[in-house]
């Protein structure tokens, strides 16, 4: 009598279990790796309407971030400069350069340049630049080495764990207020950072904000 099930079917349950385990772990690994802002958002680098370079302006010319992003110390929002701010220099510098045609046109007509926004947290997250900047948190902690970028890209993930990592231990990141916009600056040693951090925590009364309502309000 021939068998209804051939011999190899004895191994079938084992094969199914192995297959499911393999597929399951691949799916979990995929979700872990891809379903996070570290994949979906970090590295975003849109094409901007004007080929503005932070590397030239902030890096080589050594301009302070606040020359253009004037709101960053005063409000929650860090503004993109008006085209009249560019024209302060570009009425003399590269006066007729085609790369700046859109800037001149915008300054003359008052119609804003359509810059593409890169960094943006979800609308249910409350964020505030002035709190961070006036408590010794440098731009570089959240935006990376902007002064070396020809085109700005999203350097950090801005996931909730990214924010919380610093909020759990802000002392490791605080620096003197004069060095906020000096992106390349570092404390000379880990001990110096530790000493400054603990002193700043006390002096500025910095709290470790981890309660949900700090950011979701």
């Amino acid at each position, binding site marked *: 009598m021939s068998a209804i099930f051939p011999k190899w079917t004895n191994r079938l349950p084992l*094969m199914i279990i*192995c*297959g499911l385990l*393999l*597929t399951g772990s*691949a799916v979990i690994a*995929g979700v872990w*790796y*891809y*379903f*996070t*802002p*570290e*994949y*979906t*958002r*970090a*590295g*975003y*680098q*849109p*094409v901007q309407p004007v080929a503005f370079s932070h590397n030239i302006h902030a890096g080589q*010319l*050594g*301009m*302070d971030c*606040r*020359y253009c992003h*004037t709101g960053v110390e005063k409000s929650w*929002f860090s*503004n*993109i400069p*008006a085209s*009249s*701010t560019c*024209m*302060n*220099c570009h*009425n*003399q*510098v*590269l006066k007729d350069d085609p790369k700046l045609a859109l800037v001149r046109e915008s300054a003359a007509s008052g119609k*804003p340049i*359509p810059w593409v*926004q890169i960094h943006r947290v*979800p*609308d*249910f997250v409350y964020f505030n630049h002035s709190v961070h900047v006036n408590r010794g948190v440098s731009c570089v902690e959240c935006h990376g080495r902007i002064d070396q970028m020809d085109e700005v*890209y*999203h350097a950090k993930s801005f996931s909730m764990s990214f924010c919380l990592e610093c909020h759990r231990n802000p002392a490791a990141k605080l620096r003197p207020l*004069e060095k906020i916009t000096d992106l390349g600056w570092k404390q000379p040693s880990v001990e110096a950072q530790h000493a400054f951090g603990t002193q700043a925590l006390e002096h500025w009364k910095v709290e470790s904000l981890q309660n949900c309502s700090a950011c979701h309000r």
Partner: protein
Amino acid sequence: MRYFLLIFVVGVLAVTGIAGRRGAHSRNTPLQIFADMKRQSKLRPQTPNAFFASGVSSQLPVPGTIAHLPGLQVGDQVIPPYQDAPVLTGLETGSTNYVQNNPLPVTAVLLKRGQERFNIYCAPCHGQTGEGNGITKKIGAMGVVANLHDKRIVELPDGEIYHTITYGKNLMGPYGPNVPVPDRWAIVAYLRTLQLSQLGLVQDVPQPLQGALKK
């Protein structure tokens, strides 16, 4: 099993090949895997907005209106933002003459603030010492930049320099929109200190220290 493994490996390679790795630079707008309430229909600054005729969310004030701000503290007076006061206009009240002296009390704090602001807003062109040799001039990108130690500029009243910062002058653009009123006066005060540093005389040094000066 062999076929399954083959399909599995091809599948994994296809996904990683198409999706790439974390943090790779990409021109595509970020994916939103779950929309949740990430984008709500609320007004955000500096975004396009179809509701207004100008098409932008950040509206300019209606011409002739004054923002409702808390008054400015000058000594023990509070100056509301609509008053014709020297600290706001740089002019003597009720006239078109520039005020001679800084209306804010000049303190060490004000000078420190002025130094910081001067280095942010003025140094790119005028240089940190104000000699008109800032970076834009040094690399030859900018032709005309004033030397702030010129006798004519040293003799200008404080109010006129405030006016230059606020509204610009000839080839220099206005800094009024970017620098708030108290900071402008802080810059004026610091600029005076810079000028004084070039005009100092031996007699200004306290008597006991004069001997220590190097020629």
